[in-house]
């Protein structure tokens, strides 16, 4: 089963316990959480499609969508003292 990166967003009326339950569910099912916000209730995690379908049906979930990280460069600015 192919692993993909998904954005998991909880409903706006969710509470912290909902977020903790979803995060715990993902960890129990061997998903890899790479970003999360416990204040705004979203998680970016790597999981397989079957698990994504299961997560989509959880009552506190608003959306589950595949995401890709665009290549992002941190520029270096060099300033020489006169």
């Amino acid at each position, binding site marked *: 089963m192919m692993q993909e990166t998904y954005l998991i967003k909880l409903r706006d009326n969710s509470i912290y316990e909902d977020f903790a339950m979803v995060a715990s569910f993902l960890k129990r099912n061997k998903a890899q959480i790479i970003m999360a916000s416990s204040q705004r209730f979203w998680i970016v995690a790597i999981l397989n499609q079957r698990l994504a379908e299961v997560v989509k049906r959880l009552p506190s979930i608003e*959306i589950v969508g595949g995401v890709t990280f665009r290549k992002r460069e941190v520029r270096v600015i060099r300033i*020489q003292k006169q």
Partner: protein
Amino acid sequence: MADPVNAIVKEIPFAELVRKAALAIADGQTALDLNSVQTAQVLADMKLDPGSVILAIVEYTDKDGNITKVETLTNDKPLSLLAYGVVPTFYEFTQTIIDLRFWVRFWVRSTHVESSSEFNKKLSTKWTESRTKYGGGGGLSLNLGFFSVGGGGGYKKTEAQGSYEVDLHVSSHTAYDSQVYGLDAAAACRLTTTLKPKPAPARAVPQIITKPEATPSPS
């Protein structure tokens, strides 16, 4: 009798089934695209806190090029995940196989039943009847040697006998034929599709370039 199997095969709407399968694929593609667009909207609404994302690194060097100080430039305003570089994945059906299968079975079941039975019985009955009827007088008996007074008795016996013999013979014979005609028809349509991530369509997700507002001046 016309071949019923051929008649059924002619009635199967192959074109209609293929059309419906293709429309199902198109509906699936639309649903996937809509989900990706919704994801893009959610990503645009989700903000990272000010100061949480490093946008650039500023290195201060002396005349010889040695680094004397390093600073980081971070976002001074909330930064959306879309701007941060998280973009929705779009998917497409790269290959679809529509597999239609039909099974038609015509069958005839014949049954022939024949049975016969015989029953023989010899019945014999014998009977014997005997009746005895007793009768007599009553009284007193006095015996004085030379003189006696008294009453006497008697009986009647009747006998009868006979026999019957009956021969019983019963025979039966049953036979019948039956034929049952049946027709089974089943159809299955299977779609095998390959779903593949693809780059976002042009202009579907905006290209966001983040620039530091002002480059710090050397101190």
